[in-house]
């Protein structure tokens, strides 16, 4: 086994220099030194008036996705309507802005915000939508009661559930616990899709269960 270490070093250095040069000129380039990204904790919670939401749902015939069986959820919105929605996303966002003004909602977050267990409990009691970002298997083994499942991996398959969540509605996203990053990644994704009030519950499933809060276990809960 005769290995030329100088050749190895040259390959290493040459490819690194190409990489740095390419990154410098690339439109997808990133800074050489990474800044620490932190998610700030929310000081005040955005809470939608539950009674108002329920009245609106009664008027429009819409229902919360959590209480609908999967098959019904798929059938609620015709394909044509979904396609129309896709083409008019910008209009939707502007109309959401108008809604914000009408409902006197605070300005949209500049980024997703973290919430503590206590804040998550408050949001839960106000029937805020909880999204479980873990994979389907983990969700089926147990999840926060009434939470819907939109796994970060396999997002496209479960994305349809977002059709039932208005852009100006607060959302709490969680995953396993402080060591998982799925909630942050899904939060960033939804934020880019136009959701204005994204909360990340870092304590996640583990923290929720430790405190004996309401959960669903098994496929049907």
């Amino acid at each position, binding site marked *: 086994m005769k290995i030329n270490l100088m050749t190895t070093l040259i390959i290493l250095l040459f490819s690194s220099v190409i990489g740095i040069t390419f990154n410098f000129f690339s439109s997808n380039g990133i800074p050489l030194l990474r800044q620490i990204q932190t998610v700030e904790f929310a000081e005040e919670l955005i809470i939608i008036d539950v009674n108002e939401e329920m009245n609106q749902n009664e008027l429009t015939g819409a229902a919360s996705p959590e209480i609908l069986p999967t098959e019904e959820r798929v059938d609620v919105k015709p394909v044509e309507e979904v396609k129309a929605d896709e083409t008019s996303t910008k209009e939707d966002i502007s109309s959401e802005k108008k809604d914000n003004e009408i409902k006197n909602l605070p300005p949209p977050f500049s980024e997703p915000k973290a919430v503590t267990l206590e804040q998550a409990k408050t949001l839960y009691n106000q029937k805020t939508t909880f999204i479980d970002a873990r994979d389907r298997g983990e969700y089926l083994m147990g999840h926060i009661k009434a939470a819907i499942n939109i796994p970060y991996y396999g997002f496209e398959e479960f994305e349809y559930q977002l059709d039932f969540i208005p852009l100006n509605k607060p959302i709490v996203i969680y995953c396993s616990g402080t060591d998982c990053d799925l909630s942050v*990644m899904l939060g960033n994704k939804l934020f880019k899709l136009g959701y204005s009030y994204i909360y990340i519950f870092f304590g996640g499933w583990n923290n929720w269960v430790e405190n004996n809060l309401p959960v669903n276990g098994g496929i049907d809960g």
Partner: protein
Amino acid sequence: MVKILSNKFLLLLGRIILAAVFIFAGMEKIINPEGFAVSIDNYKLLPTAAVNIAAITLPWIEVAAGLLLLFGTAVKESALLINGMLVVFIAAIGISIARGLNIDCGCFGTAGGSQVGFLKLLENSSLLFIGIILMFFGSDYLSIEGKKKEN
């Protein structure tokens, strides 16, 4: 055993497999450096400041080593580099499993993202096995170095 492992066709196959995996993985990471940086950061093994440097350079080392393996130039040296990277990947995945991290392995950038787990350990260990064989025996068959020797 040595005869089987040093079979020129098997070594060529090993070269092609390693090259294909590393060129594909490297290209995916080059396309989306930020995504790869996030994946590295999630392992929480590197200082935050060093994450982007790794995300910028590592994919190019992968592609360079993969191309050299494919064309059969500096095979042992390329295999050494690939083995070094694989050892780091295996260690990172192992530590993450031990710490119970539920994160994207970042193995192929954003393409077909999958979580760290024992399957990833097995995949990387298999590649490391191929890399070690190539590092020991080299591979001249259908290679630029082989052609040079013939001439």
